[in-house]
């Protein structure tokens, strides 16, 4: 009876909501029956479906940035609405940490990237998709290894330590994650990019100070999606990608060319009886021998498959968002892949009018094989370089079709050079490095509105991981007779279990008193991280098909003088180890935001942090900041200038910090190792002593930053410009330093020494260029320039790292080496130049200068500097080319400026976005090229560029002669190996198509939508750089002092993606 009545009184209204500016359908529009809380929101295709009581008269359609519309229902069941853009309300909301703020009221420097923008590029780890999206944020994806992260630098490199920003995900401080570089599987790759609602990047100290001691390198705030009130929607997004490597930048020699090179290298030194000569002669006499392209054989096209299912459901009281993601990537080299599974559940519930309770929960597991990676600096993992270096005459298979050289008795086929050396493909396939990460990560929070405007917020979270790493090194092949050397086999396993708990309580108060708006917040946070781990290793397995501890190992016999066996011990002693470390943070903070009449804005922030990393005296630090804004456009005198819809001047100054030092550094350390033993009574007696002295003065790196910015909006904000200038100084750099020798400690302590300055300018333009007849074209452009200077260092001493140097007055991690001045073209030039390694008769007794012999015979050509060698500049004019006096800065590893340009076009259901990225004024040290162009004894293949080498006067002025043993040391670090790493890249093109509503209805889909998309990533790269890719990451551990060196990183490839999005 009652049911009947209800049925009679209700009806369903459906429709589509579109925008009047041609941008198409509007998802997320709130539709309410006027005067009630009965309502829904539109789905991603702008459709809604609402049950309305019969007595309802009016529906209200509201959406941020659009005028709210009221529509009479009448008898209609289909109501399509076009909402009108409201420029004055086009106010984005920005997450500023502990709350949000309307963009117009922001006084600091904050960049925002929406989840939608982020998900245009199919990436395994979200930070990669930030590339070029925000001014002042440099993202470097230095490795194409599946699961590798990217390195983020916000406003330059502020530290010699890990200079990564602080990540805050759903209010939980994750820390300064070293995701980037070529070194590891990024922990950030455990976050499903599809779950991200928005990313807000706090750049200046007035914005970051609320995160205090760890925010000095910027803060990246990630907000995940939450449920919305309205009808349940299910969203399925699936895509498949193919990855293809672009090898066009350089090529290697073919077999014949290689033989010619090798023989000319030997001829140059008059060596007529070298190893392999019969083979080389055979090739040169025209024998047609089989050749092999090892890289080609190892290479495969990579692929990505991703399936993402999410559900959004919500009533007025409760909303949930839940998602399930499967991600599978195969790399372009064997044994490099990543599989990831993530589940998320975010929920919000209201109890009564004042209490809101919610949770966040994410569970993820990733399994990665990283053999094709990982650290290109490590010789044992340098697969790219090793594949390219494999001699073209070196066979891949033996006569039986097995990998050559692995079976005992594999013939040393006549002159098949390098046959006996390693087999890189077999090594890659058998080398096994598996990284498994499991992570459970969740929070529960409650917001209670005590009075109107006064909200108490409390949150507790736990982040708990279990990680496993298993590395198997197979027996190396050493020679044909004993095919494998089992003694080199090794199994290492590591387990660790980090967990962090985190609690936060805040009190917020927001109130308007006439023209005064105040928004104050105070809070408390505590965080504790504990990491425990265990590792074990064993080697010299007898049978390397079975990788288990306890399997038989090769042994050594210990005998006495008579040859009697006293004991049998493993050849490689198994080892175990464990570790534990713990750190904690306690923080108090407060912020007051005040504005008068929406015109004069002021934000004052202070945070007090206590960290367990420092001693009691230095433990607490206070980080204050202040910023102010003036919305000039709100002034009376501006009202006449109609074109200018917004004009705001901002300025801020603040102090934040960085605590990036190892744990327990402030403490002294008692060493008990072999170095503390001494011998009494003929045997070792254990000793113990402080091997590191306490340094109670150790404290934070302090980052002081000034920011001045201007926001301008024209034509009702259809054109928006933002420009920011900053000056950022990092003082008290945490560095290990060598104290005076007289201190006499065994290990160097850490101290706060050194200063770095970054200054820069950032510029952003957002423009809606055209809205006409359903066609919309908009452009986002950002460009930023940063200049970096090391102001001081401990004892102002240079810090060397391979070809990098960190020197006072220069940029951090600059490239350092000899400056070349072409090649010597003839003997006259050789003997007219400062001493490199010319043939010397004697040294002048008075001046100490060398007296050259002037000899030009074969022996001199073979053993000394000769025509065709690189001429280096004698910087101090002392007649000697020496490392102490003649090396100079030869390159900058930091770009002068970077930019991103995104154009989006839409017409009806078709969308196109074209995204370019540019990096300019950066130098790279092409270390891979050194290995491919140098003249050394190895049978390694060379790069085709050596065909253009110096072969007589005037033949080349840049590629030195081929000369065995390289007597001039042409391979030394010099500007010859430095290349311009600037590039412009067509980073992403995305074309999407929404199936028309009518078609959907025809196939019975009353709501929801279907979207197809095709994406091309890294399609074109314009660069002079001769490596695989100019986007070279940081070498080790995110260390900015070792930047810009390309050791043959796992290259980034082109990616072609097809995908479909389905919602209902």
């Amino acid at each position, binding site marked *: 009876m009652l049911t009947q009545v209800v049925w009679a009184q209700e009806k369903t209204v459906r429709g589509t909501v579109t925008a009047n500016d041609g941008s198409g359908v509007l998802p997320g529009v709130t539709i309410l029956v006027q005067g009630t809380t009965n309502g829904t929101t539109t789905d991603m295709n702008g459709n809604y479906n609402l049950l309305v009581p019969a007595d309802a008269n009016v529906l209200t359609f509201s959406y941020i940035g659009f005028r709210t519309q009221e529509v009479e229902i009448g008898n209609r069941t289909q109501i399509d609405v076009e909402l009108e853009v409201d420029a004055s309300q086009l106010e984005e909301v920005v997450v500023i940490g502990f709350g949000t703020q309307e963009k117009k009221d922001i006084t600091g420097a904050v960049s925002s990237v929406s989840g939608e923008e982020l998900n245009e590029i199919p990436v395994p780890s979200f930070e990669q998709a930030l590339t070029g999206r925000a001014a002042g944020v440099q993202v470097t994806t230095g490795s194409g290894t599946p699961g590798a992260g990217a390195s983020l630098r916000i406003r330059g490199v502020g530290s010699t330590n890990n200079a990564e920003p602080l990540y805050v995900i759903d209010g939980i401080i994750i820390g300064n994650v070293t995701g980037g570089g070529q070194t590891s599987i990024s922990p950030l790759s455990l976050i499903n990019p599809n779950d991200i609602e928005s990313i807000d990047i706090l750049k200046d100290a007035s914005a970051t100070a609320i995160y205090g001691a760890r925010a000095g390198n910027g803060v990246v705030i990630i907000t995940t999606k939450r449920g919305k009130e309205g009808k349940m929607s299910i969203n399925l997004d699936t895509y498949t990608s193919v990855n293809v490597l672009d090898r066009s930048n350089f090529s290697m020699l073919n077999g014949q060319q290689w033989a010619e090179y090798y023989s000319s290298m030997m001829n140059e030194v008059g060596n007529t009886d070298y190893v392999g000569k019969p083979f080389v002669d055979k090739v040169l006499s025209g024998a047609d021998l089989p050749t092999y392209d090892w890289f080609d054989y190892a290479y495969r096209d990579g692929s990505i498959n991703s399936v993402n299912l999410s559900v959004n459901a919500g009533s007025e009281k409760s909303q949930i968002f839940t998602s399930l993601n499967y991600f599978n990537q195969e790399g372009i080299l064997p044994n490099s892949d990543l599989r990831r599974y993530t589940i998320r559940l975010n929920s919000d519930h209201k109890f009564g009018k004042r209490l809101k309770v919610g949770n966040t929960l994410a569970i993820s597991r990733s399994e990665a094989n990283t053999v094709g990676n990982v650290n290109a600096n490590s010789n044992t993992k340098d697969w790219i370089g090793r594949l390219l270096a494999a001699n073209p005459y070196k066979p891949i298979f033996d006569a039986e079709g097995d990998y050559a050289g692995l079976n005992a008795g594999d013939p040393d086929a006549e002159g098949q050079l390098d046959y006996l050396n390693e087999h890189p493909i077999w090594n890659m396939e058998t080398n096994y490095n598996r990284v498994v990460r499991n992570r459970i990560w969740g929070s529960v929070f409650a917001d209670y509105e005590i009075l109107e405007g006064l909200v*108490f917020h*409390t949150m507790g979270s736990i982040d708990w991981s279990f990680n496993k790493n298993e590395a198997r090194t197979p027996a190396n092949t050493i020679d044909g007779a004993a095919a494998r050397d089992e003694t080199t086999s090794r199994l290492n396993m590591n387990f660790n279990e980090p967990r962090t708990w985190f*609690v936060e*309580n805040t009190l917020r108060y927001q109130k308007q008193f006439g023209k005064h708006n105040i928004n104050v917040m*105070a*809070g*408390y946070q*505590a965080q*504790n991280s504990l990491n425990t781990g265990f590792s074990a290793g064993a080697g010299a397995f007898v049978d390397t098909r079975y990788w288990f501890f306890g399997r038989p190992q090769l042994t050594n016999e210990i005998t006495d*003088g008579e040859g009697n066996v006293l004991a049998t011990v493993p050849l490689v002693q198994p080892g175990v180890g464990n570790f*534990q*470390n*713990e750190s*904690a*943070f*306690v923080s*108090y903070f407060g912020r007051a935001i005040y504005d008068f009449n929406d015109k004069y804005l002021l934000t004052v922030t202070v945070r007090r942090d*206590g*960290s*367990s990393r420092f001693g*009691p005296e230095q*433990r607490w630090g206070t980080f204050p900041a202040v910023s102010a804004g003036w919305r000039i456009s709100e002034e009376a005198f501006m009202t006449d200038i109609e074109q200018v819809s917004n004009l705001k001047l901002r300025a801020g100054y603040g102090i934040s910090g960085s605590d990036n030092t190892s*744990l*327990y550094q402030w*403490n*002294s*350390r*008692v060493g*008990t190792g*072999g*170095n*503390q*033993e*001494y*011998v*009494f*009574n*003929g*045997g*070792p007696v*254990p*000793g*113990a*002593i*402080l091997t590191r*002295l*306490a*340094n*109670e*003065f150790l404290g934070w790196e302090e980052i002081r930053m000034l920011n001045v910015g201007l926001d301008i909006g024209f034509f009702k904000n259809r054109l928006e410009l933002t420009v920011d200038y900053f000056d950022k100084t990092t003082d008290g750099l945490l560095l290990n330093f*060598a*104290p*005076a*020798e*007289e*201190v*006499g400690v065994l290990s160097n*302590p850490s*101290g706060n020494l050194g200063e770095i300055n970054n200054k820069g300018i950032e510029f952003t333009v957002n423009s809606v260029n055209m809205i006409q007849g359903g066609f919309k074209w908009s452009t986002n452009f950002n460009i930023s320039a940063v200049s970096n200077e090391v102001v001081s260092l401990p*004892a102002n001493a240079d810090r060397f790292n391979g070809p990098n140097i960190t020197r006072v007055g220069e940029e951090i991690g600059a490239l350092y080496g000899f400056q070349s001045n072409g090649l010597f073209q003839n003997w006259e030039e050789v003997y007219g130049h400062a001493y490199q390694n010319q043939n010397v008769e004697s040294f002048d007794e008075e001046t100490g200068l060398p007296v050259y012999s002037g000899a030009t015979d074969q022996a001199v050509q073979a053993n000394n500097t000769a025509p065709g060698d690189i001429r280096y500049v004698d910087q101090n004019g002392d007649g000697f080319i020496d490392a102490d006096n003649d090396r100079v800065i030869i390159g900058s590893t930091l770009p002068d400026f970077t930019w991103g340009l995104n154009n989006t076009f839409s017409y009806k259901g078709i969308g196109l976005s074209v995204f370019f990225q540019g990096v300019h004024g950066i130098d790279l040290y092409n270390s891979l090229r050194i290995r491919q162009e140098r003249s050394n004894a190895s049978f390694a293949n060379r790069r085709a560029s050596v065909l253009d080498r110096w072969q007589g006067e005037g033949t080349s002025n840049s590629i030195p002669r081929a000369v065995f043993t390289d007597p001039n040391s042409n391979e030394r670090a010099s500007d010859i190996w430095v290349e311009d790493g600037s590039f412009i890249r067509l980073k992403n093109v995305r074309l999407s198509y929404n199936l028309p509503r009518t078609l959907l209805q025809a196939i019975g889909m009353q709501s929801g939508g279907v979207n197809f998309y095709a994406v091309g990533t890294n399609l074109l790269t314009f660069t002079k750089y001769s490596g695989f890719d100019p986007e070279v990451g940081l070498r080790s551990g995110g260390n900015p002092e070792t930047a810009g060196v390309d050791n043959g990183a796992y290259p980034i490839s082109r990616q072609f993606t097809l995908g479909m999005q389905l919602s209902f």
Partner: protein
Amino acid sequence: MKKYIIILSILLIGSCTEMLDQTDPTGPTGEDFFKSETDIEQAVVAAYSGLSNPNSFHRIGVVGFEQFSDNVYSGSSTTDGAHATWTTFNYDPQSTNITRTYRGFYQLINQCNQVIARAPEADISTEVLNQALGEVRFLRGFGHFMLTLVFGDVPIVTELPADPAGFAPEASPASEVYEQVIADLQFAESNLSPVAAQNGRVTSWTAKAMLAKVYLFGADELGNSAWYGLAEQKATEVINGGPYGLFNDSGNPTEDLISIFQTFNENGKEHIFTVNHFNGGGNWSDGNVASQFPMAMNPRQMRNRNNMWGFGWAYVYEAIDQQWSDDDARKDYNIWFQDEPIIVNGDTTGFYDQLGQNRCCVRDNGMGFQKFWYQETTKNVNGQSTLGFPVMRYADLLLMYAEADLLADGNISQQGVDAINAVRERAGLPALSAAEVTLEKIMEERRWELFGEGKRWFDFVRKRTILPNLINDAFAAIAAGDTDNDDNDFSAFTPERHYKLPYPQSAIDRNPNLVQKPAWSAGE
């Protein structure tokens, strides 16, 4: 209002800051250490380890200084770069040998200072405390003594720097360094037990003997002739009352000599102070327990052959064959000659073949250094040796006694003559009369007795004022005896630069108050 108070208190829940007190759970920090008797015992052991750490006596401090003398030279060429420039006085302040020597002794001193600063607060008896302090003050005194011997004026460090970054001591004049050394040794002399609790530890006798040496060397170095008498007095006390003697009871001079450097005799009656080593089986370059000096001094030509490992850092000058009497049993004991049979456990396993080798550094007539080869365990694992380095032997003390006796008043007593003759007698040489015992004769006796033990060079250094021709004649004799003109030459030797080493460049760079010596800073 009540509401606000509740809220405020909620806000501060858990605001306990004790959670910030985190120390490394994997091992003790200095806060937890130096508390118990065990802690102090271990710290004292670790202080001793400063003697055998890779920097000080591991190899450089021994072989290196012998290479400056007229005894041996580095047979290596560019393959052991540091030594090629070292042995010809072509080194500079960047030389790792210099850095290691300086660094090594300040590490020893730091470890002693840790005990001196912290042991008094430990829960131990006065007796234990004084013994511990006695041992480390001996070691600290020895460390400063070596530093002033090698470098001249050096910073005196007697504290633990509270702020390592700001620590920058100035060099003190050598005379003040000697005062500090003597103060430390006197403390050790009066607080140490006369009997070593463990074989290898220093005793009050060690301290007395070291005092004798310090007075003797200090008298030379500082021109303080009153100290000759003090040296004589301390040496007399040791000779008359101490537990020491010579290994001279086999009846065969060569066997007696061979028994000096055998592990089973280590810290025996002749060994007053030895830097002990133990073969831990690790890599020689990182552990400090195993020693490398015997391997470093063995001839390079026979490396890894005939049970002989060698770097060849101690080839014997050609002239020495003429200078050294064949009657002296020590000559054959110390030197490998061409075609000399290599006898291991009674079996001839090969012949010393200098000329037949085709290696980098063959010199005609190049004689190898043999002294430390006899020690059996040097012949096994990776050239590591358990052999201790002899800092002071009783034979050395006897000769220092004779010298102090002579120099104290210009006359030598019969006891002094007996002392030198005891040493000669063991070598199979006839006794000298009092008239024959001149300072030059004592110096020569020291050269042959302590050949290869790193002592000769410091005799040149300390006698540079009172016996300046000692070094000149020595170098001239080597040059004259070099018939084929392929030995090391000493032309680069300059007294102002080379008697005392320059401060290492790293010490200059890190300590703004340490000023390089004029002879090394001018023109740089």
